[in-house]
């Protein structure tokens, strides 16, 4: 009940006209930068920090929160329309979303992503309001062994992105794991697979790999096949909006995506990528239309998008309750707090209730604003696909390289982008799935370092993985998820025999 009163107080802060204006500026800016690959909400907040120095703390922090949520919306737009995920969290969205866009269903894809983001954002913000104090205790009790077990669950579900050949899927995954080795090993300080090139010491940037494989690789592939296979894009086929069927197929993935995104986002080392991929593979398993996956299944957009946004709200749990920044944007929000001499942490709720609850309330408002802003834009966005093909792909390449240059104006980064583009082309040509490479790059280093941390703490005793109840449970889930398909197959055969 206390939370209700505080939230009402917060709402009275957030609906002050000036703060509403700040929220609006925030979501507009956030959407704009989320659309640009390579430039995300973290950068935007950082850009604005010095500008907002003289502003009222509540107003500017509300604006930052708007940017955060707005960036999440905008990031999915490029992923769906031009297969260029602006951030690693919108990668899973690109898998089915871009296929939908190419089939003339870009409208429904964008709509389900916007509405799903709204639903997930709202539920997750409610979770932040009422569950934060409890959730944070669980989040902090997550030890390295538990993270390792979580990674095991994630690895098992990667197979959903494998396509039809396990050997080729695993090959892709191991290429990703290889790329994950590049750079300085955080636990020993030694560099691996860097060959003395200092630019490689800092590990491979996930967005560089994703944009290279997805956008550049695709451009090369389509160009190389133009003489045999003219690609025809139809901006709109059928309804621009979600049909009744689309709604029916979307609402459950939204809720399941939220259930993945919010708690994992709240974990100090959880992140947004893992819940999006977990959501993707869950939807692929549960769908009634498995044949559509890989060709543009709406569940594959609805789930990951919801997970993506829910994890953004989850990130605010450790930030506000403990002062733990667990994402780049959260780190910049923390810097924003500190600029005003505010220290997020256990005392923030007590010392600055108006600010904290005003922020939480403005998250609800930002979410509503985003939905209202984004839905009318869907029609406009899909028109982008009507641009003549030479210009569309030329524009995508310019987009991809600009994002990379803005991120790091070093030729080495662009060379990597090009090499990953060629890799993406070759993998498409020889029918290797692309997504497992990125998944390997993300999961490999986390799984390795968390396992090594767990074993260092336990002095090499592997039983630590089973002694922690969280870890034991997660490992059991991973095992079941690994074995279940085979068992079901066996049962199916058994049944078939009986019939």
């Amino acid at each position: 009940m206390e939370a209700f009163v505080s939230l009402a107080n917060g709402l009275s802060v957030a609906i002050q006209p000036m703060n509403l204006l700040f929220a609006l500026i925030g979501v507009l800016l956030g959407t704009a930068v989320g659309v640009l690959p390579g430039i995300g909400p973290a950068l935007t907040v950082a850009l604005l920090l010095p500008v907002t120095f003289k502003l009222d703390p509540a107003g500017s922090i509300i604006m930052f929160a708007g940017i955060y949520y707005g960036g999440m919306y905008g990031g999915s737009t490029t992923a769906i329309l031009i297969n260029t995920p602006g951030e690693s969290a919108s990668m899973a969205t690109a898998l089915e979303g871009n296929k939908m866009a190419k089939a003339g269903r870009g409208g429904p894809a964008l709509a389900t992503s916007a509405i799903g983001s709204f639903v997930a954002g709202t539920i997750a913000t409610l979770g932040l309001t009422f569950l934060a104090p409890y959730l944070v205790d669980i989040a902090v009790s997550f030890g390295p062994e538990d993270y390792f077990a979580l990674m095991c669950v994630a690895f098992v579900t990667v197979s959903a992105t494998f396509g039809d050949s396990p050997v080729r899927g695993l090959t892709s995954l191991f290429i990703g794991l290889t790329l994950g080795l590049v750079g300085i090993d955080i636990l020993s300080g030694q560099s691996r697979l860097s060959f003395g090139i200092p630019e490689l010491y800092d590990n491979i940037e996930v967005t560089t790999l994703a944009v290279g494989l997805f956008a550049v690789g695709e451009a090369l592939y389509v160009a190389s096949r133009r003489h045999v296979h003219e690609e025809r894009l139809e901006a709109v086929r059928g309804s621009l909006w979600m049909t009744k069927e689309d709604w029916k197929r979307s609402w459950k993935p939204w809720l399941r995506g939220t259930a993945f995104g919010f708690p994992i986002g709240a974990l100090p080392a959880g992140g947004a990528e893992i819940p999006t991929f977990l959501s993707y593979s869950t939807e692929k398993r549960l769908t009634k239309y498995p044949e559509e996956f890989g060709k543009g299944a709406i569940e594959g957009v609805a789930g990951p998008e919801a997970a993506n946004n829910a994890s953004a709200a989850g990130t605010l749990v450790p930030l506000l309750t403990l002062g733990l920044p667990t994402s780049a944007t959260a780190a910049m929000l923390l810097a924003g707090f500190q600029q005003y001499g505010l220290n997020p942490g256990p005392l923030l709720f007590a010392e600055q209730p108006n600010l904290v609850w005003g922020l939480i309330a403005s998250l609800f408002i930002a979410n509503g604003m985003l939905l209202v802003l984004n839905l009318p834009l869907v029609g406009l966005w899909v028109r982008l696909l009507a641009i003549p093909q030479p210009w569309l792909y030329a524009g995508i390449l310019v987009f991809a390289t600009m994002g990379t240059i803005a991120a790091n104006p070093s030729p080495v980064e662009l060379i990597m982008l090009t090499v990953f583009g060629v890799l993406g082309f070759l993998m498409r040509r020889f029918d290797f799935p692309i997504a497992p490479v990125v998944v390997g790059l993300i999961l490999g280093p986390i799984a390795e370092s968390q396992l090594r941390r767990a074993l260092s703490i336990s002095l090499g005793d592997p039983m630590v993985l089973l002694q922690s109840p969280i870890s034991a449970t997660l490992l059991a889930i991973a095992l079941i998820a690994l074995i279940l398909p085979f068992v079901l197959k066996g049962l199916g055969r058994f049944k078939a025999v009986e019939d």
Partner: protein
Amino acid sequence: MTSSPQRRIDVAGLVIALILLGLAGLIWWDMTKLQILSPYDLGPKVMPIIVSLGLTLLAVGNAIGAWKGDLPARDSLDWKPIVLILGGLACLIALIAIGGGFMIGTAILFAATSTAFGRRAFLMDLLIGAAIAVLIYLLFAKLLTLSLPAGPLEHLL
């Protein structure tokens, strides 16, 4: 996955298997130069060993697939557009490396890609690319105050 009924050996598939094997060897060689520093840490070698062994197994798997001719059918390949696009990217990288700024490079990349996709108006596209580059420059540098690699053209703006 048995798209070629006559089951011919797929040479490209064998090359892929060889590349994977080479990659596994490279990781192994790199691993041997690492040291275990902390007495409690599993060490930086375990992961490379796993990845290297995994890649070796997958190389065998891919080789078997190629031997059976199990690879999906491939269309013939048109190299010209690939060379054009990669050439555009190379121009951009080279121009940034030598301090020529990103604008000229971006314009060339735009025109080269659009030519690769069949347009025959290189000069026109060069101008469009340049216009886009100017727009991006103004947006990034002036509005967002981000510094992009500058060359002679950028200094004029």
